[in-house]
């Protein structure tokens, strides 16, 4: 965990976690993307490295951070974030990552598992999440992932032992 990139990602993740409840209170905030999912998708490269150790570590870490500011169970965060990585990995191997629309689609689909789990838990806890908000969360993640994950930048990211 001493990669220079992690030194940036972790403080950013902690900072975003601290301000996440305020972020959600903003007008239209219930439709904003899940911050931890976004950081995870930006921090883990595509295709994923041979070792899934670091991505899984990040999943657990971001899940912990997420559960510190929400009633939603950490298992939901871990399951949703882990599933997001798998969905993105499966799609990105089949879709052309040089096209914006396909990157958007990959990010959008990756956001679905966590959003579905959040909706399920919200329903169970008696505070149902609006379906429009759920769609907006997925759209935001797709859009931001498509904008911020340029293929040429992904080659060196988190590829331990690689040039």
């Amino acid at each position, binding site marked *: 965990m001493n990669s220079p990139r992690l030194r940036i990602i972790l403080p950013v993740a902690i900072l975003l*976690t*601290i*301000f996440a409840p305020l972020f*959600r209170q903003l007008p239209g905030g219930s439709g904003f993307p899940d911050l931890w999912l976004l950081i995870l998708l930006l921090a883990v490269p595509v295709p994923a490295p041979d070792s899934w150790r670091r991505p899984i570590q990040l999943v657990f870490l971001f899940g912990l951070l997420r559960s*510190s500011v*929400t009633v939603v169970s950490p298992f939901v965060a871990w399951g949703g974030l882990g599933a997001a990585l798998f969905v993105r990995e499966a799609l990105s191997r089949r879709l052309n990552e040089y096209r914006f629309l396909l990157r958007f689609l990959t990010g959008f689909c990756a956001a679905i598992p966590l959003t579905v789990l*959040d909706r399920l838990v919200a329903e169970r806890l008696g505070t149902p999440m609006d379906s429009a908000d759920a769609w907006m969360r997925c759209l935001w993640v797709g859009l931001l992932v498509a904008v911020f994950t340029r293929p040429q930048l992904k080659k060196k990211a988190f590829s331990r032992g690689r040039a």
Partner: protein
Amino acid sequence: MFLLPGAERYRRGVFCAGLVVFLVIQAVFPWQPLEDGCNRLIGPLTRPITELSAAAAEVVVPTAEPAEKRQALEHSVLVEMERRLGKPDALPGMEWLEVPVVSLETEVGRVTLAAGSDFHIASGQVVAYGDRYLGRVTEVGAHQTTVELVTAPNVRTGVMLQGRAGIRSKAVSLGRGRAGPAVLPWLQEANHIAEGQSLTWRPRPLDPPNLHAAQLRLGVTKRIGDEQRGTAVWTIDGSLPTAAEGRLYVAASAVGERLVAEPLQVQRPARRLLLDDAVLGSGWCAVAADIAVKPAVFAEQGQVGGWCSSWRGNWGWFRIAAPASWQSQAVALQSETTSVLGQKDWQQVDEALPLFTRGGNGVPRGLWLGFRNQAARLPSSELSVIVQADGVVEDGQ
């Protein structure tokens, strides 16, 4: 073990996929012991971030302390009403022991009471509410007692039928549990029975003689089923009074020092952390308190503001709820008719009735929720949490 690099990669991928599938399954179908254990473990780890987030939120958007003070009703108002409605008439040589209800399973005809051998309750004692016979004590634990109601499966109860012309005849009722109300499989005078006839409880030969004078009611007769198919049966029509969900009365000819048992309720000071959830939005608040067990509710100035959804060691998340949001978990007090109303009844009444917690699921009965038309109130920084210690009894006087 030798593995090719490709196979090794595949093995790791499969392991990670299996882990994620397990986590998703746990998220969709939560196994509570695992959830609780995990919450206890991560609670102290995540609390510093929660505190930091709360401090940041307070700096950016300071929360105004509620200026208005609401009228607080003592929860004993409900208790007093239940006692007035529920205590059966005094009998010579006998005493009615007042015992709060811990849980009520009406479908299977079972009630758990918050007192046991510590309160000198014995198996076979009669349980009543007002002039209603409810059942008998079947199991007595150290601090809890199980009562089987007339409707419990295979429970036989002696019944006295009051005929039209004043003719009294004997009958036996048989409980059916989930299958429906208790039926009358044996009738001494089958030809004289009609719909709506009053049924009273008939004591057993070895019951205390003074109980005969109590004239406890069971309900009225009702015919159900299809006559032409031969499936018609006489049943007992009589639902459990709403107020009986709070406390019941056990007939005893020998008693100890105490006549009232109350479950122990512990109130602890607490501190509000976060006022909003970062995933679900408003309507939630994080509260820290110096207790290890999950509290039931948080309260402020004697008024309950919400229930606990998740407890993580020494802090947890509470749902902020308006009094009416408690729905079936609330009962209303109607002082005009001196009655305790369940959800269906209090929702039909227009006036703003005072609501109290119904009890059960770890929430003590009779806590003051507020008036029906009141909105949810944002908790201030200093509040308290209430824990119900099941199975521990204390003198309620």
